[in-house]
């Protein structure tokens, strides 16, 4: 058994190294497919980052009347935090609101002068973030309860509702389109690989027939092709890994200029082993499955 396995491996390796042109063509196609799959994985991570950062900017605010005490507001904050739909609640006091406004507009003298005249016009507020767009309605309803009528000045949900829903719909749409595009590309890539390997094996049909006629068993014939498939897959995965390491390392600073906080190299490094696994499994599985399917019909002699 071990001897047969060793011989199958030797024959596979021999074929891979001797048919240089054919092996290079197969590896090249596999590199393209693996690169595509890896790009889709990285794009998924990037789009998740972008969607999360857009969604991060979505929130609603509830403003409290002048007479509302800080302890009362903090009690309401406590209550709101208990709602399962709520992701985060931040208290902004009247003073803090003024400080933030001044910090933002310190270079605008007209605004600053007006502010000096009116004093602190801001109201204390709670800034609320929900997990999903649909959940903001629930939170708004909760705050409009008559219990809070005396304390709550206004909830800005209804002004923001169309924008919030648009943002969430857009990100959901992006995800759906992304998945559909990815599936189509992967199917095309698999078909291209399968056909390349099928053509490569077609060149060997006479050789396979001879092997059958001199008494080689199916596994002794199929084995070396599978070994070649595995070697091609591993080679292509390693080439791809090198290409992606270099590209993500080189492009990362440039991308970060346009999308602050988006570090492609960091994504690559933190998902390194997942990417290695995706690349190796894509390469090996495509190589092996395509070889198995392509060789099947020539083994019937």
């Amino acid at each position, binding site marked *: 058994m071990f*001897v*047969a396995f060793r*011989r199958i491996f030797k024959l596979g390796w*021999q*074929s891979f190294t*001797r*048919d240089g042109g054919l092996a290079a063509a197969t590896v090249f196609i596999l590199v393209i497919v693996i690169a595509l799959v890896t790009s889709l994985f990285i794009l998924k991570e990037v789009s998740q980052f972008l969607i999360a950062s857009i969604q991060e900017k979505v929130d609603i605010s509830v403003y409290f009347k002048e007479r509302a005490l800080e302890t009362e507001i903090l009690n309401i904050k406590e209550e709101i935090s208990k709602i399962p739909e709520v992701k985060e609640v931040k208290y902004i006091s009247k003073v803090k609101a003024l400080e933030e406004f001044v910090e933002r507009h310190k270079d605008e003298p007209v605004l600053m002068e007006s502010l000096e005249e009116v004093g602190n016009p801001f109201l204390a507020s709670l800034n609320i973030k929900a997990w999903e767009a649909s959940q903001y309605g629930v939170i708004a309803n909760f705050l409009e309860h008559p219990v809070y009528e005396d304390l709550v000045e206004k909830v800005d949900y209804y002004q923001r509702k169309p924008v919030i829903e648009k943002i969430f719909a857009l990100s959901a749409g992006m995800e759906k389109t992304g998945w559909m595009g990815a599936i189509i590309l992967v199917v095309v890539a698999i078909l291209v690989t399968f056909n390349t390997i099928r053509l490569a094996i077609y060149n060997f049909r006479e*050789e396979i027939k*001879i*092997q*059958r*006629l*001199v*008494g*080689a*068993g*199916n596994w*002794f014939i199929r084995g070396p092709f599978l070994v070649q498939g595995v070697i091609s897959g591993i080679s292509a995965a390693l080439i791809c890994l090198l290409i992606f390491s270099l590209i993500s390392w080189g492009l990362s600073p440039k991308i970060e200029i346009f999308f602050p906080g988006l570090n492609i190299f960091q994504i690559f490094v933190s998902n390194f082993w997942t990417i290695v696994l995706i690349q190796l499994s894509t390469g090996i599985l495509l190589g092996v499955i395509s070889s198995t399917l392509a060789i099947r019909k020539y083994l*019937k*002699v």
Partner: protein
Amino acid sequence: MIKFEKVTKIYPSHSNSSPTIALEDVSFEVKPNEFVSIVGRSGAGKTTLLRLLLAEEKPTSGKIFFKGIDVHKIKPEKLSGLRREIGVVFQDYKLLPSKTTYENIAYVMEVIGKRDEEIARDVPEVLDIVGLTDRAQNFPAELSGGECQRAAIARALIHRPEIILADEPTGNLDPYHTLDIIRLLLKIQEMGTTVILATHNKEIINRLGKRVITLEKGRVIRDEERGRFIL
């Protein structure tokens, strides 16, 4: 050892023409250690007969036995077992183009699971018998027709099969190499192997003085112990 029992092989037509009868009602037996020549014009059915024995194709009717077993009742996955007991020399050599002469011959031993030491011992020995020691590391494309045919013979006999089928082994060779190959086949038979030689080379058959089965239009028209090429 080998028995053909009323074997008929008809190839169905793919157009409107009538089906081709390659073999019709063929019956004969071959005993161990015999040297049998199958002769006939091109298209007489010689190659079909050998292909049926190798179970490359199925007969339309009739049975073919090898050592008492109906070869067409063997399951496809077990066919390799039958083929390992038969050495075949093809007219077009059928050497594996991506392997050297040495590897082509060693391949058969690897297939049947011989140990590395046996391969290292036997392959050079057989290469010496067929006079190809110097060409061991050459690929088939680098060999002459005669050398390819000798390599094919070496491959056919390396695992000491009980029978060797030679299908027009001299078809592509000049007279000098033709004699060379026939001498080699006779030597193999003297060593105890059954040889079935399919040819349309009149001169060779008349020189051999061995059993001759003559085919014409797929039928056996003559089967003589010390036959001659008469058509």
